[in-house]
């Protein structure tokens, strides 16, 4: 069984995995980081988005083995150690960017990848970037609003229909 060594949310991790173990299964089953969700398991929904070396990836469509030596970031690492929410998390709460919350970890990890590359995205850019993140509840408007707000932008113009 191969051993993978990686850094997850700043903590070094070394774990024996089967070759076929998906990154999301390593996170959820071996490391008990169950904030990363599995919605579809077919790379459609984005509930499982995490960062690998800073890039958003679908953890259901990557083998754990491929993350050898990588820095992995999950939703559990977004808030500060004292529980203070990240900007984006706080904005999701303030602007009702979630209802059931199932898609939210993936949404927040995608949003933070977007803001890293593009600190002030337009509404269209946010919607395009979230193409691979599906939400069954919100209708997306409040998610877009939250991301606009988290990036310090005026949200009054965001469509309210």
């Amino acid at each position: 069984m191969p051993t993978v060594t990686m850094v997850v949310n700043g903590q070094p991790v070394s774990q024996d995995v089967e070759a076929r173990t998906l990154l999301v299964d390593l996170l959820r089953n071996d490391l008990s980081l169950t904030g990363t969700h599995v919605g579809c398991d077919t790379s459609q929904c984005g509930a499982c988005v995490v960062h690998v070396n800073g890039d958003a990836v679908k953890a259901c469509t990557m083998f754990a083995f491929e993350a050898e030596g990588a820095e992995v970031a999950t939703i559990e690492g977004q808030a500060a150690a004292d529980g203070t929410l990240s900007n984006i998390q706080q904005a999701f709460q303030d602007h009702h960017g979630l209802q059931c919350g199932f898609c939210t970890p993936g949404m927040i990890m995608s949003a933070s990848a977007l803001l890293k590359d593009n600190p002030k995205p337009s509404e269209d850019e946010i919607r395009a970037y979230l193409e691979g993140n599906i939400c069954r509840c919100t209708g997306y408007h409040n998610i877009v609003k939250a991301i606009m707000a988290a990036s310090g932008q005026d949200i009054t113009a965001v469509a309210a229909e």
Partner: protein
Amino acid sequence: MYAFEIERPSTIADAVSVLQNEDAQALSGGQTLIPTLKARLAMPETLISLTGIPEMQGICMNEAGQLCIGGATTHASVATGAIQYPALAQMAGHIGDPAVRNRGTIGGSLANNDPAACYPAAVLGSGATIVTNTREIAADDYFQGMFETVLEDGEIITEVRFPLPKRANYQKFQQPASRFALVGVFVAKHADGVRVAVTGASEEGVFRWTNAELALDADFSTTALSELMVTADGLLEDIHGSPEYRANLIKVMAQQAVDAA
């Protein structure tokens, strides 16, 4: 998934040598292969990951003025790095979604040759050359119908070389659920003529629309295409569109590509 072993060589030579075992299969971004394995549609004994091979990564210009892209370069890297070929960068930047683009690669897309994939249209429309560990293959000889290519077992795409056209553009009418092309058309005006490649439409996979090429050779404008008709014979039929619908879309997408080129 059935169980398998996995190896991650760091050179092309090592990858090729382990791929000589007939039950070994290449793994690149996994965006197609992992779903296939999950559905138990493939049962390799060993996966040979191509993601740790520096010689297969990156984008550069060669002495012949071609843009060279390593076979394991991701769609995201092409979207931001192929600055000499904006039409190609724009095409890569619209494949799937950001997370798919961060893993999926040019070599994986071309080896898979999905009839609705974007890269086959770009490669055929550009008249690119597919370089493998054993040979160089012209785009016109490479694609052999849906999911079929001339690649032999154990042969891997190490690089793709694109001549730079004078003008080019890709227009995709997206199937919103899968994000693949319902119809996609890549138009490129080269010094020696126009090439028009169509994906998503045909039962035979990507193809060149030669009548449009002739018309655009004479006059590179949207009106040059207005009299042309595409026959619905041999076009794909599924819940997303009839052959007639796709035939019309080919013309509309080609006109939009000419307009934007």
